[in-house]
């Protein structure tokens, strides 16, 4: 049986968080367990203290933009040797230059343009959600990148 996929949903609008969670549930791409954050700073704190396999991040937020949050998450993953989790921008930005910045420079994996439908989610999120499912089934992303099942300190001790 597939493991639950822990998803962090970041948006300063409570209504949009509800809508993202409801649409993802309706899309039936995975069995999600959602955690909400109302801005980038709160999201980053949660990311540091809790484990997630995927994050859905609004772009236009006060204090820390979604793109800045993506950069922080990637930096933190790298510093701690964690696996990269799929980061999906959920945005009303539609200019290609901005999208390229989020995807190429900051390190997001995909984006969903608002307004979106459940079918849009199914079409655009197959790959990132499949990767998140893989991470969930393997016990999460909080282990050194490249470590195999049975590897690492405990693997060597009991393997």
């Amino acid at each position, binding site marked *: 049986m597939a493991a639950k996929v822990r998803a962090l949903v970041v948006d300063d609008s409570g*209504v*949009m968080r*509800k809508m993202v969670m409801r649409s993802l549930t309706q899309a039936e791409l995975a069995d999600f367990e959602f955690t909400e954050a109302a801005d980038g700073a709160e999201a980053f704190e949660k990311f540091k203290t809790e484990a997630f396999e995927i994050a859905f991040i609004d772009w236009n937020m006060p204090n820390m933009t979604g793109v800045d949050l993506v950069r922080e998450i990637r930096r933190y993953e790298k510093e701690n040797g964690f696996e990269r989790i799929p980061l999906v921008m959920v945005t009303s*930005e539609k200019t290609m230059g901005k999208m390229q910045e989020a995807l190429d420079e900051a390190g997001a994996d995909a984006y969903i*343009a*608002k*307004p979106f439908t459940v079918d849009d989610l199914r079409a655009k999120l197959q790959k990132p959600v499949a990767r998140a499912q893989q991470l969930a089934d393997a016990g999460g992303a909080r282990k050194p990148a490249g470590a195999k099942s049975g590897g690492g300190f405990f693997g060597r001790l009991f393997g």
Partner: protein
Amino acid sequence: MSADVVNATIPQEITTAVQAAVGKTFEAMYGARPEERPAEEIDMDVPYVAGIISFVGDEKWSLCWMLPQPTAERMAAQFMGGMEVPFDSEDMADIAGELVNILAGEVVAQLERQGMPAQMSLPTVARGAGLRVFPDHGNGVARIAYDSPLGNFWFRVAYGSDGASHRMPGH
């Protein structure tokens, strides 16, 4: 149909971008394009919720999406998949802000295609009734009104070289 410009001149690219974005966004969200109509035909002395957003770039201007109560309630319910959203609720404010945010993303894309790059602010929201606001000296204001199956609504485009073009919503 051209926008109803109250005073001063607003660059044509801006009103054109707003009109194109309204048609495209509304159709994507609600399945049909709204119909533009003369602003003076719409009763604007009604309770409304307004989503407001500013743009900076080559030009400084702002956009206010005014949703009369019945229209706002219908649009919010549809936005939330049929769930009733009270007019005076926090969710309604969130939705008004989100709607203008989504629209503004399309406006920026339209402007970029016309060679006028712009960046948008975070949205703010106001509720009111019958407000009459006069623009700062030298600033321009345009009203663009629409009718739709969900009810009527209108936009207030405020343009000003000093960037202080939209201190509060109104018409």
